């Protein structure tokens, strides 16, 4: 029987079928961070349980860490306690930890791939919804809650209802100035924030094949913003080239054996998906969100929509609330909306290619007078690479703050937050009310668009540059 990529990975991980459509599945890689794990470790201790496969578990601190001077202790005592708790738990249970002193520390979804720990065909979990990022390698990667984190630590397994399978076929060629971020935002705009609920998305089509690994990660990262359980892309030469030689990737004979097996990870011709959607990449322009969900998004050339013109009552109410929160008036052109802050960072868009794209816009220019802009590299490795390329100078000379790695202002758990009423051009993944700081107003966009907004002090169409 013909199978999809997702069917193949699912079938390969079934330890036991528990009921119709419900299976106990084996987890190849469990990523752990400081915010969603303390209660899980406490549960293990209470029940006197151990971590079944510490060698399949990697931990880092990212959500709650300062991105300023690393030589100083963490100023927030409660944050410090949570970061320390992960250190203690990692030691006690024998789990490898990339802490604040590690040159490999960074956002969990940036370091897994860059270390080569993320590999095709794996089942990967993490107590974080953006675990979908790792699907870019042809892995089944999903976010889980803390009770499930505890379950995976204790059993190396997870119980799941098999999700349905949705093909998102992205055809055509991207126009210049249009990024992977624009493709995924446009797709979410098309299918909605619950458009893929209960499904695993497989991204296919020539526009996907043409993406670099880092661009594929951006696409898969935001699968959750369409409600998907996971997103994935079949591995190919681009995947193998990216992985070869990375510290945790197989080497020598094992490399060739693995690549041979990885080549089988694809959807059979004619294998049935439960649903399919298509998007023509050639018709997508740079995207900017105007509301408080990632699905409230439009082309930069568009205007703030009028809620009264939306067909469904629920949409009208939601859009009215969103515009009131965002302080926007229907009919206002998106291009030209003044901004106060710029955040270049997050597991969506803080890899080296993202920083290069932003730097190429910024080079030789300066951030607008009343704008505060920051670059938060996705990992200390990305930061070091950028510094080798002189990108830190480009950003600093332009007036950007150049910071250490972490989730930072994507969710504002550390000191990097928006003030009430501040409007931010952000490369992150969520524009929910208060996400970046209580009362803060977030517009999601690509790194190049955010960089251009920093220079102009307002939302602009990067294609005009």
């Amino acid at each position, binding site marked *: 029987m013909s199978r999809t990529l997702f069917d193949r990975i699912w079938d390969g991980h079934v330890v036991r079928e528990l009921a119709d459509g419900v299976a106990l599945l084996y987890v190849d890689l469990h990523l752990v961070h400081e915010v*969603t794990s303390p209660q899980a470790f406490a549960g293990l201790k209470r029940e006197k349980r151990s971590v079944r496969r510490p060698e399949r578990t990697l931990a880092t601190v990212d959500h709650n860490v300062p991105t300023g001077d690393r030589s100083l202790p963490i100023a927030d005592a409660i944050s410090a306690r949570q970061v320390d708790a992960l250190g203690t738990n990692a030691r006690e249970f024998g789990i490898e930890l990339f802490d604040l002193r590690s040159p490999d520390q960074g956002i969990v979804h940036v370091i897994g791939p860059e270390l080569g720990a993320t590999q095709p065909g794996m089942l990967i979990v993490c107590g974080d919804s953006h675990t979908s990022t790792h699907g870019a390698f042809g892995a089944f990667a999903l976010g889980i809650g803390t009770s499930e984190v505890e379950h995976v630590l204790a059993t190396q397994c997870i119980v799941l209802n098999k999700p349905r399978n949705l093909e998102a076929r992205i055809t055509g060629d991207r126009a210049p100035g249009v990024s992977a971020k624009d493709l995924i935002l446009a797709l979410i705009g098309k299918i909605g924030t619950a458009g893929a609920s209960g499904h695993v998305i497989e991204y296919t089509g020539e526009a996907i094949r043409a993406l670099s690994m880092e661009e594929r990660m951006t696409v898969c990262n935001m699968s959750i913003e369409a409600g998907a359980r996971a997103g994935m892309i079949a591995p190919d030469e681009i995947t193998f080239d990216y992985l070869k030689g990375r510290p945790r990737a197989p080497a020598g004979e094992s490399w060739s054996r693995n690549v041979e097996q990885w080549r089988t990870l694809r959807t059979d011709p004619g294998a049935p998906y439960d649903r399919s959607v298509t998007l023509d990449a050639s018709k997508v322009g740079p995207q900017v969100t105007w509301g408080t969900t990632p699905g409230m998004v439009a082309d930069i050339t568009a205007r703030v929509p009028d809620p009264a013109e939306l067909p469904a009552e629920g949409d009208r109410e939601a859009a009215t609330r969103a515009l009131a929160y965002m302080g926007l008036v229907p009919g206002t052109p998106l291009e030209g909306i003044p901004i106060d802050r710029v955040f270049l960072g997050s597991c969506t868009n803080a890899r080296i290619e993202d920083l290069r794209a932003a730097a190429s816009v910024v080079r030789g220019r300066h951030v607008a007078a009343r704008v505060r802009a920051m670059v938060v590299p996705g990992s200390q490795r990305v930061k070091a690479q950028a510094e080798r390329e002189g990108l830190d100078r480009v950003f600093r000379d332009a007036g950007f703050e150049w910071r250490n790695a972490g989730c930072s202002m994507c969710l504002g758990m550390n000191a990097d937050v928006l003030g009430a009423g501040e409007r931010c051009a952000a490369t992150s993944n969520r524009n929910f009310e208060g996400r970046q700081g209580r009362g803060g107003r977030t517009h999601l966009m690509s790194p190049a668009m955010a960089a251009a907004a920093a220079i102009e002090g307002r939302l602009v169409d990067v294609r005009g540059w």
Partner: protein
Amino acid sequence: MCAAGDPMTPFVRHKGKATALPRRDVDTDQIIPKQFLKGVDRTGFGDGLFFDWRADPNFELNRPEARGATILVTGPNFGCGSSREHAVWALAQYGFRAIIAPSFADIFLANCYRNGVLPVRLPAPQVDTLIERAAGDSYEIAVDLEQCVVSDDLGFSARFTADPYGRELLLRGLDEIGRTLLEEPSIAAYERSHA
């Protein structure tokens, strides 16, 4: 004695005061904002529930009629966004035992099943009826997970479909880890065959 929010609190049936939050796409950042995620325990999240929204005196849960509610009736895609289980802990510790909506986000659903909180999916028109009724004072809803029925004293009665595995976790208040550990021979066999 188990309390809602404990992993092993069974849910069989419950009748209680219902309150309405007629909004769609309520995300977990709203349910429990980031500043409450710094704790290392499973307790103390009730005060953070809808923290930013509760600053508004007109917010639905601030109405005097909403006091003491144990059932929340709300819009589609409830619990979207972050995987934070703290959202379910906050709802449970605030006092909610069941949430009725046209749809829920997947990770949020999984978190509910593991914390004794029942998510009930009903078609949007039925949810709208309940939202309308819950706008009044002292409106009660009964939820029976054994029979998979939602009803009220005004004649409303609707069957719902529950995810079988989640239903079992809730009905029996199972220690899921303890149960999976009984599968040790299967897990060890899987590891041997994939070594």
